[in-house]
């Protein structure tokens, strides 16, 4: 594994058992998260992006199960760890920030207690005094005055609660922060302040961030690379300027044309027909083929491989994969993603 890869995910699949049969919410997903990068993960609701984020922390709860895959985090396959070892990875090495900080924070615990508890749980030797000093310093760094440390979550505004969540991720200097719709409940100005703060923090703490969101604008604002997910599969991955500026997959192309852009003088949006498929019985071949404006015969029969057609730009689409109509080759999952 190259030194700049912090997290290498290979063929990760997650199933949920439902009344109507198993539903595959992440289907053989492979991707690398580079050290120090912000990787955006975008997709519409139900595409599996949150499931993928949880699976990276092995936090998928029944009726969901990781059915296959390797999770190489910093040279170690997390799938081989015991629950106890895994608990130490969570929080200390990988931290998660969720959409709704009100439900992630303990309502009867002060901000100070949240942070010191986090420190003391993972660092048994640290003295309470030192932990409190660290908490004060950190909270101050995030723009919350020290006198608010004794406040309870309900006394803080939404933006401040989300800062507290980030501070919990930073106290232990986690290598990877997974932010799942972390800005979605915030108002635009507060969201912009939060993005500014993340930008500053990533320099200072050398953070690696996986930014999971449906908001294309937030990803464009902060990410270095972006992965696009559709119906439990990755369909495109690459540099954010490349993927958003020159999208290859027809789904990404449609998505980019249908996102409102306040800076453009254009008042028309592209209408993508149809809706995402039922994941219990997904379409055969490429899952986007029933909605694809460029659909070919092979698309409904064989799944396209997730291949690099330009350096560091991966796409799962038959358009870019020369194939013999008579003898379509088997889909392959690239190992370099």
């Amino acid at each position: 594994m190259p030194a700049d890869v912090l997290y290498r995910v290979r063929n990760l699949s997650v199933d949920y058992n439902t009344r109507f049969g198993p539903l595959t919410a992440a289907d053989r997903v492979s991707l690398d998260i580079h050290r120090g990068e912000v990787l955006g993960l975008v997709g519409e609701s139900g595409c599996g992006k949150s499931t993928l984020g949880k699976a990276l922390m092995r936090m998928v709860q029944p009726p969901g199960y990781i059915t296959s895959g390797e999770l190489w985090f910093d040279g170690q396959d997390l799938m081989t760890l015991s629950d106890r070892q895994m608990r130490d990875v969570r929080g200390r090495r990988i931290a998660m920030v969720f959409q709704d900080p009100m439900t992630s924070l303990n309502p009867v615990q002060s901000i100070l207690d949240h942070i010191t508890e986090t420190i003391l749980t993972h660092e048994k030797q640290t003295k309470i005094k030192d932990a409190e000093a660290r908490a004060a310093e950190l909270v101050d760094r995030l723009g919350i005055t020290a006198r608010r440390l004794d406040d309870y979550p309900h006394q803080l505004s939404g933006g401040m609660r989300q800062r507290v969540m980030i501070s919990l991720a930073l106290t232990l200097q986690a290598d990877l922060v997974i932010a799942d719709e972390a800005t979605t409940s915030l108002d635009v100005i507060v969201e912009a302040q939060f993005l500014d703060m993340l930008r500053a923090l990533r320099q200072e703490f050398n953070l690696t961030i996986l930014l999971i969101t449906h908001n294309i604008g937030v990803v464009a604002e902060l990410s270095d690379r972006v992965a696009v997910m559709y119906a439990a599969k990755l369909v495109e991955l690459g540099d954010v300027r490349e993927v958003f500026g020159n999208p290859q997959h027809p789904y990404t192309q449609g998505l980019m044309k249908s996102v409102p852009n306040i800076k453009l003088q254009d008042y028309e949006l592209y209408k993508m027909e149809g809706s995402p498929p039922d994941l219990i019985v997904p379409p055969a071949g490429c899952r986007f083929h029933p909605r694809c404006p460029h659909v070919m015969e092979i698309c409904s029969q064989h799944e396209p491989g997730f291949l690099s057609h330009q350096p560091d730009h991966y796409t799962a689409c038959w358009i870019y994969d020369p194939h013999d109509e008579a003898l379509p080759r088997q889909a392959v999952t690239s190992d370099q993603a």
Partner: protein
Amino acid sequence: MNQTDNIIEVYNLKKYFPLRESFLDNLLSRERQYVRAVDGVSFSIRRGEVFGLVGESGSGKTTVGRLVLRLEEPTEGEILMDGVNLGQLGDKELRRERRRMQAIFQDPFASLNPRMTIGDGIGHGVRIHLIQDMIASGEINRGEVNTKVRAIVEDMMERVGLTPAGFLYDKFPHQLSGGQRQRAVIARALITTPELVLADEPIAMADVSVRVLLLDLMIRLQREFNLTYLYITHDLATAKYICERIAIMYLGRIVEIGALPKVYGKPLHPYTQALLEAVPVPDPEFRRQAPMPKGEIPDAINPPSGCRFHPRCPIARENCAADEPELRELEPGHFVACHYSEQFL
């Protein structure tokens, strides 16, 4: 203002919600506190336009919408519909006027009765409002009511894209997708042929691709039925694609109002400028450079004195803390409530 042009006129509208008092507050006869959700708002909506009311959470935009529909009694101020003061109408007259207004809210699942089929849900208003008139006028007799209702409902379902209508008619809300549910809500709102539709975050719960389809549908229906929309949203980017005029709210007040291309092209209020700057653009080449105002919206119990934005305003001067600015027309049809906006003209 030309009376006949405006379907709605709002003058100095206020809504104060009293805070819950404790026993101790009563005992010590402390002064009662109020959340000033809407605090002196005036605007008018022209017939046939899409009027946007935009603001962050807590700005009072939703309360204004509810006041206009008279779902809420104003603390102060007047709302005129076609020149008639809704506050002076009796219950019966108000109910008649209400037929001309309908609402679409954010969560279609919460708006639909889970135990009523889609068709029955949409047709409910038909049975209440239209059928009586039809029977009275002799257009149909009582025996034909069910067939007639079904025909009207299926026609409306076709128009909002709930197809095949005959098939979806007997489905329940949970059997539909989110986009279809919102279409059902739209169909139900339009079936009584309203003139004014309050749309409060109608697409906020939908995904990008569904949003576009819903926006497109709303615009098409507006032309087809000659509707006026009061469109309430926090999403400035999508507002651009539907609103013709727009009002920006901050802490219970309107800070700027005008034609959308004017307001977006040349925002005159520092708050509007910050708001527009803050919206993330789906293009990595356009990363925001401008700094954001510090802090968040203060609470509406004790709003700042003078201009409510002054503690966060980059161009605030001394008198901003004392003098509350009124809306001034700096360009034809473009109003702003700021003492120092001339510099942005």
